[in-house]
């Protein structure tokens, strides 16, 4: 069983971090995984996306995907460009704080997450990407929520430790 996951958004929206945290969580559960970022000449701004392939048992043969079990889109251009990537019956996670429209796909399960509003409830909109990460992980169920919490502890350590509690709350706040 292989899960092909795709994250897209604007630079600075934390899509690469979401992908990396997913890969960390997979590794923590000893699942073969690959994380492949898009790379280009722009250092700031622009779009960014990454592909994560998680396998249950055998090594990941291909880090590139032609269809995804789940796609996360954080802004409108990403929705327009990548909603077609979701395979029929797959899941599409939409950052409804920035994306007012609905998906044109009716053969996928769309999950609308108001990431910024939820993060605002915690007093810091910068946690919006972790809100999405939590919603995504809860819905996908590939790795346990406990494992993901450990990953958060790793990511928010050292100088970033002061943001750990905030992000743990953000991770659990979306509970639909």
């Amino acid at each position: 069983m292989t899960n092909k996951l795709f994250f897209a958004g604007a630079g600075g929206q934390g899509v690469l971090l979401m992908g990396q945290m997913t890969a960390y969580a997979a590794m923590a559960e000893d699942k073969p995984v690959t994380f492949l970022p898009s790379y280009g000449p722009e250092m700031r701004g622009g779009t960014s996306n990454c592909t994560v392939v998680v396998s249950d048992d055998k090594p990941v043969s291909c880090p590139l995907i032609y269809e995804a079990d789940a796609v996360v889109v954080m802004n409108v251009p990403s929705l327009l460009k990548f909603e077609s990537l979701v395979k029929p019956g797959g899941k599409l996670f939409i950052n409804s704080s920035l994306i007012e429209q609905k998906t044109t796909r009716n053969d996928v399960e769309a999950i609308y997450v108001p990431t910024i509003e939820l993060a605002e409830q915690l007093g810091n909109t910068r946690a919006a990407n972790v809100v999405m990460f939590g919603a995504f992980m809860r819905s996908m169920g590939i790795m346990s929520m406990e494992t993901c919490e450990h990953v958060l502890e790793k990511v928010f350590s050292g100088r970033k430790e002061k943001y750990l509690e905030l992000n743990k709350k953000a991770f659990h706040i979306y509970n639909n």
Partner: protein
Amino acid sequence: MAEKVLMKGNEAFAEAVIRGGCRFYFGYPITPQSEIPEFMARELNKRGGAFLQAESELGAINMTYGCAAAGGNVFISSSSPGISLMQEGMSFLCSAEVPCTILNVSRCGPGVGGIQPGQADYYQMTRGGGNGDYRIPTFAPANIQEAVDILYEAPMLADQIRNPVAVLADGMLGQMMEPVELPEQKKQYSADEIAEYKPWALTGYNAKADKQRVVVKSLRLQPEALEEHVEKLFEKYHRLEKELVRYEAIDLDGADIVFVAFGTMSRLCKEAMEILSEQGIKAGLIRPISIWPFPLEAFDKIDFGTTKVVISTELSMGQMIDDVRLGVCGRLPVRLIHRTGGMIPTSLEVVEKAKTILEESK
């Protein structure tokens, strides 16, 4: 067993080669491998070696020539157009029998081309763009762990064979992350130990047991002497052609088609094989891990009773296909599936093209 860490390819490569004994790095920034000089700048000085940002790739390869000739264990990396600039030095290193480890995190050409992954440096790495008769053993890993394992052994191998050893990884392998196990640190030789360990190195003759001076050179103006030297180099290369061959051969028995692919492309082929198998088509794979020496012997293992066609699958206009034809040696048709310019086919695209080719070959 060592703990697994999730590492970006480029950083894993750099860490592996340090653990393999490398102490010196000379480089110049170029996408998609700039994480390597950055990593080396952070690590080498504090781990008893030296990092130097060169004025150009020409400078870097010649710093390598000097440092390695003086006994230093040197690693050098760049990407396609930068490797082009280094070809002059590689020819010198081979002739002077000076070892080093070279990594090409390749992109697309010709010219400055683009920065997306490509495999159009196959000729450059296996044939060499430098002048004269020389060879550089070159390995093409398909995942980060394999790259780590190869780069870990490369410095010692280079020392043993007194020749550069190269690794060809494409930009995708450099930029992606996978869990890896890192091996233990190998012994690194200090400046004082070099004269004993490498008697051919420039150390000043006072450091030598026999107090004899050494000359590191490629110049031989007498044709007789140059011929003798090159013949001697090729005795070594012919031996390496037998000793260094590495490949993976999967599902060749009873296969309808056999893919030949290395690096990133081989991973797409593996997924394509799964899809084809679901559709009732048996596909095998020959994955060269050493691209020089090319695993010609692998082609003798093809099931000639069932296989209809051999397909070289490449991120170039078809370069490895020349070697594939040598391996097949006229026994079967050889066809090409390719994308170039930084375009990577999906595994579905490979499947569709392979099915068409199979139909045409029946």
